[in-house]
């Protein structure tokens, strides 16, 4: 790659648009010295980065090809060595809607991950719950995978306990949006199928799952869905503890001394 002055670049947006609740995309960077913009991808084979004029950048943003962030973000330090030595890691924008992060129990948005600092910025023209940050490609994949795992964990618990179908579908959909690694995507597809309307499962399999997993077979897919259903139904996802039953039947007897029952989290008193 041709030498590029890293300190002369700042991130002002991302390629594409936040079409789902989380994901990643290439950053759009601006050269401070002349205001020209580029989609920042580490070029291979000594190819120069092509820069566009500020007016052209505006037109890309206006047609939804790029999405601007509010303010700017510095190129992550983890992505280059020295001020002009060039990229060592591909920088990547990661965006997330707080609605998804809340389900993943990852609110507030992390200030750092995998040793990289994350500066979150709102996206122009989008809901204030959506923010984007920039980090290395590796970190972006790990972070999204982490969210996907957390979402599937919640899915498992809710599938076992509560079975709110709409909510489960939302969780599985979120988990698919987040999952990057192949293993996690397969698991997320299975959960998505588990809570889909039966007539749609095959359609999604043919149009999407099969595109990502060309070796998968419909028969095997069906079997895995069934196995997952059995697994999630028949075994509590957590350590099983026996439940005590009481013989109290009248309301008065149930409430007797109940205000004196210490909560689980109360400090235990030493027994003499």
């Amino acid at each position, binding site marked *: 790659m041709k030498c590029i002055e890293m300190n002369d670049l700042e991130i002002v947006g991302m390629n594409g648009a936040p079409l*789902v609740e989380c994901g*990643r995309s290439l950053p759009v960077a601006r050269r401070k010295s002349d205001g020209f913009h580029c989609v920042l991808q580490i070029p291979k084979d000594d190819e*120069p980065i*092509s820069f566009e004029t500020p007016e052209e950048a505006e037109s890309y943003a206006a047609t939804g090809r790029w999405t601007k962030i509010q303010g700017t973000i510095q190129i992550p330090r983890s992505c280059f060595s020295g001020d002009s030595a060039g990229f060592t890691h591909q920088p990547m924008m990661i965006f997330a809607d707080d609605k998804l992060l809340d389900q993943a129990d990852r609110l507030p948005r992390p200030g750092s991950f995998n040793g990289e600092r994350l500066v979150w910025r709102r996206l122009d023209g989008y809901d204030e719950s959506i923010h984007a940050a920039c980090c290395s490609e590796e970190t972006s994949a790990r972070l999204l995978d982490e969210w996907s795992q957390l979402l599937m964990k919640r899915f498992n618990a809710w599938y076992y306990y509560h079975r709110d179908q709409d909510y489960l579908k939302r969780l599985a959909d979120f988990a698919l949006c987040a999952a990057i690694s192949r293993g996690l995507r397969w698991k997320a597809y299975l959960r998505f199928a588990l809570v889909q309307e039966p007539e749609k499962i095959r359609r999604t399999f043919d149009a999407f799952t099969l595109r990502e997993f060309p070796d998968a077979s419909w028969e095997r897919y069906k079997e895995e869905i069934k196995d997952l259903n059995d697994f999630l139904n028949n075994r509590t996802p957590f350590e099983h503890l026996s439940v005590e039953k009481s013989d109290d039947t009248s309301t008065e007897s149930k409430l007797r001394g109940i205000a004196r029952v210490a909560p689980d989290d109360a400090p235990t008193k030493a027994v003499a």
Partner: protein
Amino acid sequence: MAVFTDLDRRVCEPPFDKAGYDARRPVCDDVASKMPIVHVTGYKRLFKYIFINDPHEIPPTDGSHSLSSGTRKAEDLLGFKRSVYFYAGRAHRKFGNVALAFFACCEENHTGSATPFDSGGLVHPRRFIKLKLDSDDESRLVQYGKESVLSLSEWRTVFGKILAAYFDNVIDYWKGKPNPHDPEGLYELNDEWRAWTFEVRFYEGQSIFDRAAWCTDEPLWNRLRRDHDGQETKPPGDPPTALDRFMEGPGLIIAPGSATFCDEVERWVRKEVGL
């Protein structure tokens, strides 16, 4: 004169290597004849316009959600009709988050033209192509542009010759740059690939269902899945929706979403042409 003007005669003289040219021609002609053409666009244009409107075609530049005003000016200057734009074998990520590749046979049903460079880069108000011309006037650029126009029926032949004449290796079309043997300096003064990539223009819309390969970025791939799932199930016998046809219709679909979806498409293109 254009990079291909009088090329058969020019390759016989230094600095061209005639023997090498002759040796490369068969491979280059083969690559040129097979070279898929690629169009990159954004979600809004694809979904808010193409999917919901019959006949589900990528529209020429007067369609909505296109980068039109500057492009239309360039078209007017060079005498092109409103066009759908493709690059021969290359995809530029700046145009959006979905890349669609089409086989050469798509050209048969179209009128249009081609140039051995990005025509907008030459005369667009935001031009980026540099040339050594005797004058910097716009009229001189326009003249150069017009000299470089090829018809749809002839561009692949010329493309094969250009690959053989200016590139030591065909792969340099993607990973290197041409030798600077043209007097106007198109290949000498420019480092950006759009200066040597053939641009193909159709004057009519191009059906998205004819795509040979396609790739999106990750968010768009997930959005497609969600939109697809959100469609109501139709009774048997009802015609499929445009999205159904797009997803399930014939044609190779490359991998799922990828931030480097343009690279994926180019990789597929190179494989298609045997590289």
